[in-house]
């Protein structure tokens, strides 16, 4: 059984209110030195079989059509080492 990770982040030009709210809160909580925070999603997809090319192509399609909203989000797919 293999695990594939799909990371989904808002495209850089899209506003990320959540990340901004966190970044604004940090100094008040005593954390300094952070320039920006962006919040996205991480999916752990556990495959029944091995993470071969066919399976990865499937996960990529899954990311494109279901896990990410490609109007506003980018995604990356990788096999967990």
């Amino acid at each position, binding site marked *: 059984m293999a695990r594939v990770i799909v990371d989904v982040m808002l495209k850089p030009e899209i506003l990320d*209110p*959540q990340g901004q709210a966190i970044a604004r*809160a940090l100094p008040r909580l005593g954390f300094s030195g952070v320039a920006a925070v962006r919040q996205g999603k991480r999916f752990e997809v556990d495959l029944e079989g091995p993470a071969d090319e066919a399976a990865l192509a499937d996960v990529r399609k899954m990311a494109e059509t279901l896990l990410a909203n490609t109007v506003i989000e980018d995604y990356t797919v990788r096999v967990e080492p």
Partner: protein
Amino acid sequence: MSARVGVVTFPGTLDDQDAARAIRLSGAEAVPLWHADHDLKGVDAVFLPGGFSYGDYLRCGAISRFAPLMRELVPAAREGLPVLGTCNGFQILCEAHLLPGALTRNASLHYVCRDQRLRVESTGTPWTNSFEPGQEVVLPIKHGEGRYVADAETLAALEADNRVVVRYLGNPNGSLNDIAGIRNEAGNVVGLMPHPEHAVENLVGAPSTDGLGFFTSILKKLVNA
């Protein structure tokens, strides 16, 4: 001497006016408390109202927990100050570790607003002493992240010590053990997902005035103290 109940406003708090009105309707004085102040203004009890503090970004209640006022409230609550958190207030109390467990995304994945039947299970708290044990009430719920979760040990302890304060009759969100509200060990800190402050008048809000009991309870407790 009137009982003074503080109502906290965070950026994004929504039900503070409603809470203050309910407190006044029950005969107590509502004292506004501002998140950025280090001042509890000597209140006798505190109500943490619902809303979307900090937009509920990151996690409900995660950012509010660090407000200056919370630095005053947490030790005071540990020393016995009666505190009631509803909805977002409950989430903040869990995030601040004044109550165990956490509130997570509804199992339906949808926000839900409805009039909810509930059973009051624990009447020994300063906020529920006006109810009969086992009394059924109707209060509105309105939340997207109200599914109460805790590890098995915590759940067992909550049940064993009668610390489940209200339970859903018809679970709306997948909460473990149908839990709608709990209290801390001492009983002074109570958190609820339902909104008693929206069930205190016939003209508006839910078709019930069952919420009043929470406010008359605290008044009774404070006046008799």
